[in-house]
């Protein structure tokens, strides 16, 4: 992300002196909206933990003092999908649970991201049975997969870093401009 410092405006003769004039640094920055939005989003993820099995136990140690997931901006566990933007699925998801997971995902407001933690959530794991969904990507889109059975806390941190990189690469304004441009082409056509 580039923050470019703008030189302070030159005080005009006769006008009141600016509070920022003199030796204090410039209060202005120029940057793109995308960069600011992505910076804010990637460093303040509010996760919703959807823990169904032992991967969620590992997640507890991740959140507690030794690994301290909050260092990376995923500060605040939210137990309602309405207030969260990162869905963490940890553990086996059965077909009976699939509609619940789908509904929780739909209740989250955009922008939203999904991390699938562990073998079961990512692929069904060793459950090759009538009752287990073979990977939650059959139900909802997934941004980052974590391998492991269960994954170590370091793997969660790695996934969070990968997700942050991914978010920083998104273009909120870029997408909007593209959308407007497409609409304009439709109108012209």
């Amino acid at each position, binding site marked *: 992300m580039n923050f470019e410092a703008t030189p302070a405006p030159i005080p005009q003769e006769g006008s009141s002196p600016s509070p920022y004039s003199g030796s204090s640094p410039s209060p202005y920055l120029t940057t793109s909206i995308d960069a600011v939005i992505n910076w804010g989003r990637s460093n303040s993820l509010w996760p919703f933990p959807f823990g169904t099995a032992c991967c969620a136990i590992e997640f507890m140690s991740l959140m507690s003092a030794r690994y301290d997931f909050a260092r990376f901006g995923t500060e605040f566990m939210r137990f309602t999908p309405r207030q969260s933007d990162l869905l963490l699925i940890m553990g086996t998801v059965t*077909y*009976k649970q*699939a*509609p*619940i997971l789908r*509904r929780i995902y739909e*209740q989250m407001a955009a922008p939203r991201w999904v991390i699938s933690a562990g073998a079961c959530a990512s692929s069904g794991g060793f459950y*090759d049975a*009538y009752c287990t969904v*073979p990977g939650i990507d059959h139900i909802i889109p997934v941004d980052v997969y974590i391998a492991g059975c269960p994954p170590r806390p370091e793997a969660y941190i790695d996934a969070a870093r990968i997700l942050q990189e991914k978010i920083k690469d998104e273009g909120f304004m870029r997408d909007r401009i593209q959308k407007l441009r497409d609409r304009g082409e439709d109108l012209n056509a």
Partner: protein
Amino acid sequence: MSQYAKQLTPASAADFAAASRNTFEHLCAIVPATRDGQETIATAAIVAASDLRKAVLFLRDTPEFAYDMLIDIVGIDYLHYEGHKGSRFAVVYLFKSIAFAAHRFQLKVLVDEEHLNVPTIADLYQIANWQEREVYDQFGIHFEGHPNQKRLLNHFEFVGHPLRKDYPAQKRQWLSTNDPMIDQLELRLKENGIDVLDPMPLNTPAVEDLIKGDRL
């Protein structure tokens, strides 16, 4: 519990056979509990479905045995089972005696595929309510007189009985809704003496909206 322990000696398989000669033997065929027949503590018997309740009452209420704890009810599908002839299904009841702590009793009912009915014992052992529902869910065996025979583990939209040997293991079934189980909740409230004035109909659009959060 302890009053039994004072008066009685624990019944072994041989004692059991001797003691039950009059009352029980005409109901059941006593069989070895294990394949090698060396088991001395657990006893097994095969009983006809029509005599099941009599046999269970005998086991529960005879003070010499006092099998007052039902550990489990298990279904068996003998399809493709090597060397098996006769009925396809079986339901096994596992009893334990609290007074004679080591003692177990297995009661087996053979169930034909054409006549998938077994009398319920949910009124004799409370735990049998859910266990019979589980066997019904996984094997499709009906328990006559069961107060609430619904699926226990699988979703109510699930079709088929997955622990049957002819159920394709790779088959996946997509389910469209989550089960609010409001009917079960209301049943429990009624059992606890709370009146449900306006029972909520299950799986109507209104309930769906309520769960989705579209309607407040």
